[in-house]
């Protein structure tokens, strides 16, 4: 069993509180992604799990055992770094063999030159060789084993770094933005490969990224972090559809979720901009709220219809399959973005008046502090004031 439990871990550097009591349980064999903007403490948390950094408070256990007192090599975790951290003057083979050499061979057997004459070292070397070649084959890098890291492409380096992590079959893989140095196409390809690898190995993965699409495509669950705090831990689907915090809703999903301020008007309506929206907020009348509306819940239509919001077309982003219409609305600083079928892209003239219809069932309500307010039920009805 190799679940990882992070219990109220805090970390302060001289004047920065990088982590503020983060608690997170990662299940055995799970692909967990730590997602958050730059500087939110993801790497710090990962390094604490690895034992490379000591937490200021809290504890970490792996496989049910507290590991706070253990140095990195005793924790049976492997790490893949953003810069790959391959030893530059060693070949790929030597890079991959080193973790095994350090673990299986005695100091005498490891000695350069003389080491090979120490008893048992030949057999151990053969075993290590077999392991290295097996892993190299599974990553399709057998032909690169004799090369130095400088002679490899980005993707090949990435695989070599993965290989070094895999050879000793660790309980837990820790990955700190391993794809961020790759070009866009390779990154997409490696995503699939990593997800495959995770299924094949069945090991626990903790994966750090600030790229939400990486998080959404690969993970079993995603932990969203901000400013040293954990905001929500959930599957990609519920993270997207059921965020518990406005910051999560804003961070996950592209284009960014539309946020419209409003006030609870009655038991079943919220006044937003100049209109009444039929959402039933579990909050007293008069409470200030914010409505989070994803662009796919908004449909651009004629200015005269029973639209929820009205404004003028600012910009049309045509992606082919879909198009995103940016609508400047009075009373909002940022335009509202609504999605339409790509074939309609030419309908919207820049500067012309436009209305936007909204599916009230899919509106997310947040209180003033950004916490989610559950909606009681919603009736798709809409009244508008002249």
């Amino acid at each position, binding site marked *: 069993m190799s679940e990882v439990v992070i219990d109220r871990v805090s970390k302060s550097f001289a004047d920065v509180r990088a982590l503020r009591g983060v608690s997170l349980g990662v299940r055995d064999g799970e692909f967990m992604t730590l997602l958050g903007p730059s500087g939110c403490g993801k790497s710090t948390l990962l390094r604490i799990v*690895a034992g*490379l950094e000591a937490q200021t408070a809290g504890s970490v256990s792996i496989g049910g055992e507290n590991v706070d007192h253990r140095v990195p*090599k005793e924790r049976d*975790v492997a*790490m893949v*770094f953003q810069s790959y951290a*391959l*030893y530059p003057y060693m070949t790929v083979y030597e890079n991959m063999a080193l*973790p095994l050499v350090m673990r299986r061979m005695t100091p005498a057997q490891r000695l350069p030159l003389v080491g090979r004459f120490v008893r048992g070292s030949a057999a151990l070397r053969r075993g290590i060789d077999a392991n290295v070649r097996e892993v190299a084959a599974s990553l399709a890098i057998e032909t690169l084993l004799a090369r130095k890291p400088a002679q490899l492409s980005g993707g090949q380096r990435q695989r070599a770094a993965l290989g070094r992590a895999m050879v000793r079959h660790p309980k837990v893989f820790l990955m700190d933005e391993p794809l961020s140095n790759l070009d866009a196409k390779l990154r997409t390809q490696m995503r699939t490969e990593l997800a495959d690898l995770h299924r094949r190995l069945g090991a626990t993965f903790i994966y750090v990224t600030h790229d939400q699409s990486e998080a959404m495509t690969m993970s079993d669950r995603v932990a969203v972090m901000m400013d040293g705090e954990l905001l929500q831990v959930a599957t990609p689907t519920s993270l997207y559809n059921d965020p518990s915090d406005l910051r999560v809703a804003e961070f996950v999903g592209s284009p960014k979720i539309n946020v419209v301020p409003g006030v609870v008007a009655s038991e079943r309506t919220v006044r937003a901009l100049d209109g009444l929206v039929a959402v039933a907020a579990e909050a007293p009348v008069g409470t200030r709220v914010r409505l989070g509306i994803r662009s796919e819940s908004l449909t651009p239509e004629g200015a005269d219809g029973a639209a929820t919001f009205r404004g003028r077309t600012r910009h049309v982003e045509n992606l082919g399959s879909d198009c995103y219409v940016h609508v400047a609305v009075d009373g909002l600083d940022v335009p509202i973005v609504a999605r339409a079928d790509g074939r309609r892209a030419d309908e919207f003239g820049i500067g012309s008046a436009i209305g936007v219809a909204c599916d009230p069932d899919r509106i997310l309500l947040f209180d003033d502090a950004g916490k989610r307010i559950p909606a009681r039920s919603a009736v798709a009805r809409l009244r508008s004031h002249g």
Partner: protein
Amino acid sequence: MSRPGVAFGVFRHVVLLAGAAVMLAPFVWMVATSFKPPHEIFAGELTLLPRQWHAVENYGQAFTKVPMLRYLANGVFVTAAIFALQILVAVPCAYALAKLEFRGRETIFTLTLFGLLIPAHVPAIPLYVMLWKAGLLNTYAALVIPFVISVFGIFLMRQFFKSIPDELIHAARLDGLSEFAIVWRIMVPAAMPALVSFGIFSVVAHWNDYFWPLLVINSRELAPPPLGVAYFRNEEAGHDFGPLMAGAVIVTAPLVVAFLLAQRRFIEGMTMTGLKS
């Protein structure tokens, strides 16, 4: 190119070649004289090549009248021992200063910077007294021990180690390397260029050093090359220039040849002395 351009080009070469002639003259004259028999040397003629070759005799004498091979061997042994020990002491310290956090780090680094300000001649008297009390005067140990610590080496290697990314060290820790193993398996190979520069700096400084051997050595068997040349010169009382020049050629040749083979590295290594002060 314009006419003044050509004129300047000629002027540049004339001046620089004249300078080069002055710089080279001692070397040329040294080699030329080492080939000449005494009567040609004392004829006071301005000729480069001898009429009668006396090279075999001169170089033969340089090797037989004084234990020249022994001097060279002493030089090789002492410079190698000094460099090896300097690395052994300085590199782990430089790594700790560059990459580890521990109480006392700033203090050690400050002391190292203080050390950089002190010329090698300053601690000479107490070091001499220490070696004398320890009964080590006139031994190889006396030649080596004072230079085992190289503050400059610590400083230089620390600067270099700082430029190695932390992730490499983190990877090594996860791969199961101890701090000690990280120093020798990861940092040292990655720092080879800096080590080579420092090696050149160290070897040149100690191969050429005269002050310290003069203080602590008084037997021929232990003399490094500069001291050997000085002995040779004193015995010849400045009369038998042929063998003396041959001796000078022999002592100078190793570093000069090494310099000609690896100029860029040498200039890098030697101008680092600049940093030292």
